[in-house]
């Protein structure tokens, strides 16, 4: 039987005489196998001395030799100190209080050192302001061991001695001939440095000090100055807040220096039926918006109108042009502000002096006790006008010398080209820097500076609260602080340490210098009375201007800083690069966030490819003549229509390892230091591959994952209404899964000894991710790189899941799911579920949920391990013996929480994973108490067993019981918002025991019956409208 059918693989085959088809038919391999390259070359083959027999001999011998040598242990050397420092005991950690002040992050921290090496950053609990370290601060310890640091002073790229460096500089400074000397520095917020700069100015005439913040708060500073006569920022205590209205201020992020999440979280936990109410007007989806009770997505231009309208309603006078719906929301918000009396506060992130003046006026009119203008924040000093004028003068040729410290204007100035051109013309360009970054490569003189963990310093966080910086390690390289250099150049012989000590004396309290240094913080003695200042600002006209100024036609871009990278200083830090963004959950990238409506209009797409990974389109972002090309697009639920967002801090190329040269540089769009710009987008060719760690974005109405309720229901209804324990049928009777009768496992006796539990309050968790980095640094979690994260092989022991609602709220999701009837039709579950998979297009609710190993008492992973590598401890921890694991990965398959992580490769000392664990310097950050895992073993959260064991041992040695606050995990001690609490539930007085008894307590996927030792607290939203 024959057939005329012709089977074809490609259209080309249908053509009769296609030469391609002909050749391909003859050849099995489309490409030539390059055997000829060595076999064809007769000469080289013959000249080779190695015959086949020789080759086999070598192989045989080396195999035998290797196997013989493997039987012998290596000789390990131990080198003790010659003279051991008194306070260092090998194996025992020392803690030092110090302060980070890198111009962007300011925080009092505690540094854990082992054998003289700093290995971890912790919160300084003695600090009253800015004592909660964020993710970047936690990761900063790794930046100390950055391989790319400048190791010694350099002139024109040549290493020189400091003596020569000093000689050259002073001769150049003296030969300037009256030209201007400009000191371009970061915000130091250091009284001693200010004094030093004054002394320097006195010695060399014509010195101008320009303070430059890469991400500026100039508008807020100017407004404060105009109103209160001092260049500072108001300090807010959100723990006192009852109603918070934020107009475009991401105050849980990096707004005005950040560090407000701890206070905010205190007010979010319902106590006596009360919690704060938070209303957020914003364009990008931010951490603050995600945590808000009510989030209103509006474009930046609308935000100005809203602010003006709030002013109108609070202070009186003025009308507004808001749409009726928005006006209604504003009216209700203002009413709520009024009811909150002194607990009301309005904040704004609009980069406009008028807007900031209006905010100050509103808070004053509300007589808010949340805002504190007496003890004002000093941690942003950057002056946009000064910087702009400086660049002009630089190009005019009137500047003779530029001395920079802690800044990278060649990268971060919007007009960097202009700056670079001017810089090339000056007689003397000095850069004090840790990296040979963009600016340093443009400077003749590069002064290597120490990391803050190697430096001395004093920081004025607020007007009265000071924090001290002290070295925690001997400088790794031949570096010198900017301040020490200034001392040298002004002919002062004392060290900066002595200088601070002398300078601080006047401010110190009773304890004196040593106590202050021990605590790391002190409060100024003279809390001198605020001088009365007659303000000249006309608020009413500001409000009017605000309402009229804003009309916009194109897309409004809001630039922001990401939780992971901030202003981009630590771009070479693999921990931060791999940290997923709390909102988009994408790592190793920045991207433009676009609303769904705008994406459809511009034909931009996001799609998940076969392995689940996320792909997205590219766009070119245009702002006047400036074009930022090939920006990947993420369609962001909750993004205000007509607005887009793009983060600063990415796209650095100099002194950055190749793997970490990711993202695009958005600073060229940061015109006039205004975060809001009008741009146009144009689709570009190509598809971007994201490394996104969360591929499913909605909760699908699964109330057993995240339980959520409203304050009203929480206050009025019984527990089982809003926190229902799942039930199963036992003898046709509904029995709660928690009761022992439905348990197929025998319960262990856990009444004796310690029984550790971890409590996570979803109300207090702001999603900041500090715990993720703290866990990394405590537990030697490896960094796997972008392509591995894209393959879902990220190693984070702790992830902070973010869920969007599919409808406007999660409650509506639940309702929709409950109302499904049948498969098809309007309420059909088939179509319904796929609808639920999509996040809402207009506005979404967001919830964060930190998930780590749940340490189940009936752990599914333990029962399937064929080699008993994972087993249960009496203290409630699920143990993982790495040396026993053979890598079957059954446990990961059987884990309902998907928290187990597999070492697909060797991540240390492997050139394929060239991150900190692949160089001697970076490995210094490793915690010596935790095993560095090898290839082929499973790992997971250990509930920081090394820390609990240490607490127990310390108590045993001292012959006492363990105090409650001694039991900590890395995440719980890093959590400045108090969302994560760890402790022993057999200690009846412990905090965690109280929390476990709370009505809000539930376990993740309780119906599975795993009985976890981690529990969550139902999220309560204050949705009460007036």
């Amino acid at each position, binding site marked *: 039987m024959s057939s005329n059918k012709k089977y074809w693989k490609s259209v080309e085959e249908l053509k009769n005489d296609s030469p391609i088809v002909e050749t391909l038919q003859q050849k099995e391999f489309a490409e030539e196998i390059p055997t000829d390259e060595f076999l064809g070359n007769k000469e080289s083959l013959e000249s080779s001395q190695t015959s086949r027999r020789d080759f086999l001999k070598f192989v045989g011998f080396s195999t035998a030799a290797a196997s013989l040598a493997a039987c012998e242990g290596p000789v390990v050397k*131990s*080198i003790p100190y010659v003279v051991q420092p008194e306070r260092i005991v*090998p194996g025992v950690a020392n803690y030092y209080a110090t302060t980070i002040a890198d111009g962007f992050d300011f925080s009092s921290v505690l540094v854990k050192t082992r054998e003289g090496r700093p290995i971890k950053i912790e919160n300084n609990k003695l600090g009253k302001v800015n004592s909660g370290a964020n993710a970047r601060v936690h990761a900063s310890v790794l930046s100390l061991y950055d391989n790319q640091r400048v190791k010694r002073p350099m002139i024109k790229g040549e290493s020189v001695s400091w003596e020569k460096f000093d000689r050259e500089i002073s001769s150049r400074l003296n030969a300037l001939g009256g030209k201007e000397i400009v000191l371009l520095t970061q915000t130091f917020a250091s009284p001693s440095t200010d004094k030093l700069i004054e002394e320097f100015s006195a010695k060399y005439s014509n010195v101008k000090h320009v303070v430059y913040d890469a991400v500026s708060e100039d508008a807020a500073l100017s407004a404060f100055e105009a109103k209160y006569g001092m260049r500072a920022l108001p300090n807010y205590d959100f723990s006192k807040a009852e109603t918070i209205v934020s107009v475009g201020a991401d105050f849980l992020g990096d707004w005005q220096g950040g560090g407000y999440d701890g206070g905010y979280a205190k007010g979010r936990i319902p106590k006596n039926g009360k919690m704060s109410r938070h209303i957020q007007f914003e364009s990008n989806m931010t951490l603050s918006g995600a945590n808000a009770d009510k989030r209103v997505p509006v474009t930046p231009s609308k935000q100005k109108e809203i602010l003006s309208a709030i002013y109108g309603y609070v202070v009186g006078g003025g009308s507004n042009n808001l749409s009726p719906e928005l006006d209604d929301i504003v009216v209700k918000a203002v009413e709520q502000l009024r009811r909150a009396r002194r607990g009301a506060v309005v904040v704004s992130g609009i980069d406009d002096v008028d807007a900031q003046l209006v905010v100050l006026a509103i808070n004053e009119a509300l007589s808010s006790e949340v805002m504190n203008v007496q003890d004002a924040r000093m941690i942003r000093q950057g002056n946009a006008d000064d910087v702009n004028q400086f660049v002009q003068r630089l190009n005019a040729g009137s500047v003779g010398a530029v001395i920079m410290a802690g800044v990278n204007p060649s990268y971060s100035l919007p007009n960097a080209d202009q700056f670079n051109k001017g810089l090339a013309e000056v007689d003397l360009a000095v850069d004090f820097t840790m990296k040979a970054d963009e600016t340093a490569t443009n400077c003749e003189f590069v002064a290597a500076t120490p990391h803050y963990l190697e430096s001395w310093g004093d920081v004025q966080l607020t007007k009265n609260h000071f924090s001290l910086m002290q070295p925690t390690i001997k400088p790794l390289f031949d570096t010198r602080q900017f301040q020490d250099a200034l001392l040298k150049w002004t002919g002062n012989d004392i060290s900066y340490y002595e200088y601070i000590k002398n300078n601080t004396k006047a401010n110190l309290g009773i304890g004196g210098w040593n106590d202050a240094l021990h605590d790391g913080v002190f409060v100024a003695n003279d809390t001198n009375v605020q001088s009365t200042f007659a303000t000249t600002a006309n608020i009413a006209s500001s409000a009017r201007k605000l309402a009229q100024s804003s009309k916009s036609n194109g897309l409004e871009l809001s630039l922001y800083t990401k939780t992971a990278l901030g202003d981009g200083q630590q771009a070479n830090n693999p921990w931060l690069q791999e940290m997923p963004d709390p909102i988009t959950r994408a790592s190793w990238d920045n991207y433009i966030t676009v609303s769904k409506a705008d994406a459809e209009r511009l034909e931009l797409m996001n799609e998940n490819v076969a392995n689940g990974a996320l792909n997205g389109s590219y766009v070119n972002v245009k702002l006047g003549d400036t074009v930022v090309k090939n920006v990947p697009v993420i369609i962001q639920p909750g993004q205000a229509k007509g607005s887009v967002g793009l983060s600063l801090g990415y796209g650095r190329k100099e002194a950055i390892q190749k793997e970490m040269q990711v993202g695009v540089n958005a600073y060229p769009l940061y015109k006039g230091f205004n975060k809001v710009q009008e741009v146009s987008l144009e689709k570009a060719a190509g598809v971007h591959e994201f490394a996104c760690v969360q591929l499913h974005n909605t909760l699908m109405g699964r109330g057993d994952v995240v339980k959520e309720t409203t304050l009203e229901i929480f206050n009025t209804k019984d527990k089982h209404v809003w926190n229902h324990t799942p039930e199963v049928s036992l003898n046709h009777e509904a029995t709660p899964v928690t009761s022992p009768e439905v348990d197929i496992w025998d319960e262990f006796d856990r009444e004796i000894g310690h029984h550790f539990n971890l409590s996570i309050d979803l109300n207090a968790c702001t999603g900041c991710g500090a715990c993720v980095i703290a866990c990394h640094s405590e537990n030697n979690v490896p960094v796997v790189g972008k392509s591995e994260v894209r393959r879902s092989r990220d190693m984070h022991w702790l992830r902070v899941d973010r869920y969007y609602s599919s409808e406007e709220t999660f409650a509506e999701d639940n309702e929709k799911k409950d109302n499904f009837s049948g498969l098809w039709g309007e309420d059909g579950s088939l179509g319904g579920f796929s609808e639920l998979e999509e996040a809402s297009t207009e506005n979404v609710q967001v919830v964060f949920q930190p998930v780590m190993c749940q340490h189940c008492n009936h752990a599914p992973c333990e029962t399937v391990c064929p080699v008993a590598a994972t087993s249960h401890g009496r203290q409630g921890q699920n143990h993982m013996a790495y040396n026993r694991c053979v890598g079957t990965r059954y446990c990961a398959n059987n884990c309902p929480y998907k928290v187990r992580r597999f070492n697909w490769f060797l991540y240390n000392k492997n050139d394929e994973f060239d991150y900190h664990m692949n160089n001697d310097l970076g490995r210094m950050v490793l915690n010596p108490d935790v095993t560095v895992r090898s290839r082929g073993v499973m790992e997971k959260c250990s509930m920081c067993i090394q820390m609990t064991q240490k607490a127990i*041992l310390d108590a045993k040695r001292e012959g006492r019981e363990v105090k409650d606050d001694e039991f900590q995990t890395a995440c719980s001690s890093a959590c400045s918002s108090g969302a994560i609490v760890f402790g022993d539930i057999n200690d009846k007085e412990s905090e965690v025991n109280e929390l476990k008894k709370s009505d809000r307590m539930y376990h993740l996927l309780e119906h599975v019956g795993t009985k976890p030792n981690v529990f969550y607290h139902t999220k309560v939203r204050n949705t009460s409208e007036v």
Partner: protein
Amino acid sequence: MKKVSIRHSISRILLFAVVLLLSFSHNAIAQEETAAKQADAEKTSEAKAEASEASSGDAAASMEGDPAKGKELFNSLCAACHKRYKRSTGPALNGVTGRHEKQWLYQWIKNSSEMIAAGDPEAVAIYEEYNQTAMTAFPQLSNADIDNILAYVEQPKPEPTTPVAQAGAQAGGGSGGGLSTEVVLAVLAFVLLLLIVVLVLVNKTLNRFAEANGIEVVKTPARKPIWKAFVENQFLVLVSSIFLLLVSAYFAYGYLMQVGVDQGYQPVQPIHFSHRIHAGDNQIECKYCHSSARVSKTSGIPSLNVCMNCHKSIGEVADASNKNTSVTEEYSKEFYDGEIAKLYDAVGWDPSTQSYNGEEKPVKWVRIHNLPDFAYFNHSQHVSVAGIACQKCHGPVEEMEVMKQFAPLTMGWCINCHRETNVKVEGNKYYEKIHEELSKKYGVEQLTAAQMGALECGKCHY
């Protein structure tokens, strides 16, 4: 220095076996020879030392002081800061009577600071020379006492001729021993060869005789060879092959089980530190030097400044004549003094000026106890909390001239001890509650570490 290194390796074991086979008996002879020579040398040196002591005793009698009494006083009062023939914290005292007037000395010893205050030029000079450290005043000493001390310190230094001879003898003996072993070996091999040749020759000759005399050598009728019989008996083959397999499995298992177990590992250290002398003879508490064992997970190799606490004033070991000497037949005084000199070199101490010169050379000790990274062990838990003697795991360290790994340090060994050892709960508030509850649960008075949870994987592996 003796090279001692016991690390398992096939190549080494094989080599060792061959050497042992060839040289077993002769080695022993050679060592005895050396030992005998050494003993001779030492005897002569002792004799000489005695002689010099006696002669100096005679001399001292004429100085109206009793050196024997003086020695007692010197050791109790002066030895902390002074040595007879060497500068220490204070100057060397031998020859002091030549440097100063006797009356001046009386006054100085009884109250030196008074003299310095009074501005006595000699006193001030000494005060300045020795870093302005005043000598302790001894008002309790009478002039006669001081005379006795002076008599003792003025005894001339015994001539150091003997040790040189001894060292020479030792070196000669050592190399001689090695040479003779080889020679004897060669001779023996030669003799063996001769014997074989002779045997073959004799056999040949006898056969020839037999042939010549026409005697037929009676040949036994060929029987079935035993190996053939064995091969044909299948049962025997089966049994013996099973037996062989079992035996080889036993040895293979035994071999594999000792891979990575370095019990008895005794590497050569850069400085020959004798635990026998320190912990044994001088009874220094372990935790004096290994102080971090009390508070830390590591016992800590003492830093060199800890050594210098004592070795600042102990620059040499007592020689063989002293009844408390640490010198043994194997290790001479010169050897130990040389090791102390290595310490001085490493820490940058100049014994002649009694000061640090700042040139530090950290010592690269060879680590003996190597726990794998995935096993967590905490010294303080065992030493401070449990109160376990160091010797329990480290063996009789006070008898070890060269430190070695005493315990196998395997997990089985740890577990075993945790099963057998009772937790020391007395007087420890931490254990009060948990002990009471647990002993009720298990119905026992004393809880073992295992019952306390010390067998859980995660207690040591994280």
